């Protein structure tokens, strides 16, 4: 008898089909991976198990957990199962904790709630659990508040709450997606350790096939609320059957068409000894100001027609340097030159702006929702000295939309009518309209689903070949940089620790940090070899 078994599970929300006839099971000591892209229903599957569903939801079928059908259990009894028999870990560690309560209170709360012990004992137990997930008392006292912890540490607190009283089932909904790769690697290790030590059943939900391949015993591939394929993890190696699974696999193992272009020796952008200091804002009469160097003496060049990658984890200073190159933030020392002009934050004239364009990470937040696509894409044209006629503008915009794989008629639509991938295509069209020399791609594909991501990367490669563009491709994900750049810079704590030809850096990393990054980065091929 398996610990949890879903039979013909269907979910409707306001009469809209979300999940359709799901059947799966998982046993004690097993890791079940549920994989799918956004909108596949994988999170809703998790929410269905713990019966925390949005208003207007109706579930049909059976979820047999520990010989009880959870669908027939009263809400009161369900409250006793949640947190006690089923632990839950969420995706967003930054918001999953109550900002006003310290971590000791938050962990001991779940212990106190489900066991008959005194408050004092529950606090003692909380300390033990936190120690177990890697937050020892000496360094992380119980009185810490969530805002005093990093994302990875917060996620450990969430895990501590979930495993505090040894549940039988642990559900983790994208637990490492919002974290840096090195932090992610450590968290995955921790989860695996907990599963084997406590003999847990873990349902791991993610969009990242490489992560699943590294840890799961069984796998379910979902699309649009249905299970497309399922079986032991070996099906990844032996070969998947359905078309969708194959596409997903190929996209996760993405290798772009080789970039086929020769970059020139002439320098387009020169960043020379650039530093950026921040001082803390508090006014103090007694202490000297603390100075924090976000970027410390960074130098690099980008040549004409060259794709350069900039890799680093959150807080390494890559965004600061981007903003400096765009002339949005001042620098403390050093010099940034584009062709013959120096970029200074106080006065970047339109002629310089015309040469650099940017595509941001968030395809939802980087457009004004009240403007139609034509206006959004044509807006940078005001940088042009000579006025462009309205009719020519239309021709330009429509041409570019076709070029990035959209329809000419899309120019009359508004941004909410597009999917994330399409929006990113529009952002690329917008960046191309003034014929720039350099495009900064700031985590431009990070928020996209893998299959969409592969398409956008292909598009970027093709455009850079055809338009003779240079890219500064900024990402926390090494595998993406590998496929699209010829030169790569690795950044840590405001400094560039390694730089070189992309192929060399990946094959023979010199710096310790680069090696750690490469090891931590989930890699499908590597994981498959271990199976």
């Amino acid at each position, binding site marked *: 008898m398996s610990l949890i078994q879903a039979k013909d599970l269907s979910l409707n929300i306001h009469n809209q089909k979300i999940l359709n006839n799901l059947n799966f099971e998982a046993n004690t000591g097993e890791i079940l991976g549920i994989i799918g892209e956004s909108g596949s229903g994988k999170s809703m599957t998790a929410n269905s198990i*713990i019966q*925390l569903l949005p*208003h207007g939801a109706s579930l049909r079928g059976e979820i047999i957990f520990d010989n009880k059908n959870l669908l027939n259990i009263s*809400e*009161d009894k369900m*409250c*006793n*199962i*949640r*947190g*006690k028999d089923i*632990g*839950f870990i*969420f995706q*967003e560690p930054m*918001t*999953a*904790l*109550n*900002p*006003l*309560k*310290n971590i000791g209170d938050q962990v001991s*709360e*779940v212990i106190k*709630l*489900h066991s008959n012990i005194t408050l004092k004992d529950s606090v003692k137990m909380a300390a033990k659990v936190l120690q177990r997930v890697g937050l020892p008392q000496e360094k992380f006292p119980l009185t810490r*508040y969530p*805002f*005093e912890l990093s994302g990875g540490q917060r996620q450990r607190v*969430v895990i501590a*709450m*979930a495993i505090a009283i040894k549940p039988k089932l642990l559900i983790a909904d994208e637990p490492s997606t919002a974290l840096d790769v090195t932090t992610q690697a450590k968290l995955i290790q921790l989860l695996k350790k907990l599963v084997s030590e406590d003999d847990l059943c873990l349902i791991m939900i993610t969009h990242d096939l490489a992560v699943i391949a590294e840890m799961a015993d069984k796998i379910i591939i979902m699309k649009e609320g249905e299970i497309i394929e399922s079986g032991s993890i070996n099906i990844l190696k032996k070969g998947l059957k359905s078309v969708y699974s194959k596409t997903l696999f190929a996209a996760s193992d993405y290798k772009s068409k080789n970039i086929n272009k020769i970059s020139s020796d002439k320098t387009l952008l020169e960043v020379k000894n650039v530093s950026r200091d921040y001082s803390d804002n*508090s*006014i*103090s009469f007694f202490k000297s100001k603390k100075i924090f160097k976000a970027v410390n003496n960074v130098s690099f060049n980008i040549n004409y027609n060259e794709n350069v990658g900039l890799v680093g984890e959150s807080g390494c200073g890559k965004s600061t340097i981007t903003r400096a190159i765009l002339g949005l933030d001042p620098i403390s020392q050093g010099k940034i030159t584009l062709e013959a002009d120096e970029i200074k934050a106080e006065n970047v004239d339109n002629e310089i702006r015309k040469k650099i364009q940017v595509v941001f990470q968030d395809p939802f937040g980087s457009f004004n929702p009240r403007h139609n696509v034509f206006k959004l894409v044509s807006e940078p044209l005001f940088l042009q000295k000579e006025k462009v006629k309205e009719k020519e503008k239309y021709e330009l915009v429509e041409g570019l939309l076709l070029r990035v794989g959209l329809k000419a008629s899309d120019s009359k639509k508004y941004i909410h009518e597009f999917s994330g991938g399409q929006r990113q295509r529009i952002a690329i069209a917008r960046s191309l309209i003034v014929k720039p020399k350099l495009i900064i791609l700031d985590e431009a594909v990070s928020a996209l689903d893998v299959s969409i991501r592969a398409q956008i990367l292909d598009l970027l490669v093709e455009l850079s070949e055809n338009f003779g563009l240079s890219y500064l491709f900024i990402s926390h994900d090494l595998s993406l940089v590998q496929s699209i750049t010829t030169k790569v810079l690795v950044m840590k704590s405001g400094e560039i620790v390694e730089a070189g030809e992309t192929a060399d850096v990946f094959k023979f990393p010199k710096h310790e940090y680069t090696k750690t990054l490469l090891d931590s980065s989930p890699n499908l091929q590597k994981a498959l070899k271990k199976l």
Partner: protein
Amino acid sequence: MLQYFVRRIVTLFFTLVIASLVIFVSLEIIPGDPASYMLGINAQEDTLQALRQELGLDKPKLERYLEWVKGMLIGDFGVSYTYRAPVIEMVSDRLWVSLPLAVYALILSTLISLPVGIYAAANRGKISDLSVMGVTQIGIAVPNFWFAMLLVYLFAIILRWFSAGGFSGWEAGLFLGLKSLTLPAISLALPQASILARVMRSSLIDTLNEDFIKTARAKGLTQNQALIKHGIRNALIPVLTIIGLQFSFLMAGAIIIENVFFLPGLGRLIFQSIAQRDIIVVESVIMLLVFSVVIVTFLVDVAYVIVDPRLRSSIL
């Protein structure tokens, strides 16, 4: 922490200085001569001159400003032009009506509105929520003086539980004093409570959509437990802001209600003084109100710090 409060108090001081300047200058600009108002339109020029001299109106403006400020610092607010009585006495008599009334109304409105707001948020979208919100809509829309008259009609004229107006004075005892302030306080509290309940509700609903509430539910807390233990305190910050603003309004804005109930409060005093060009009284009362607003704002800031540990650490 101490540093933070020192800094706040310094800002507070400068706010008061600037406010005093603005009050003084703007009242100088307003046309109308207190002396001619007091003596009537038929007064002789030399009599007027003599009175101006007596009141100190002929001195240079800067000197008068400095004297006014110096006086306030030692508790001497000057002498009313019209009543020839020390301003401090007139004001403190009135203050003992207005301040208790404002506090009374604020306590009532907070006690009513927070539970109502929480109840509505907990039952959001249901009939009970909709009807509670409908009532608060009416509470905001109804003019409070009209509501006051209804209260008088019901409780004073029909039921005869309260008197229709006037103030017994605190000498008659705390109970009688509070009793004569009850109907005015209820009429003041109604619109305030309605606004506050709506703020509480929407703030709490926002909080309930946060991820950490889902975490709390996943820990096994029931809906109501999650709301009480994790929701309310997080929802309180905007509510505190509104409470602070409402108190300032209640101190000075009770004038219509004071008139309905014949209460000798600050609102009526300031109204009369303006009509009589009793500038010294106007200046002092406004200054007093500014002072109370500044203090309340300060207290609200302290309350933020108590509620939110993030603020606590940023000021350490």
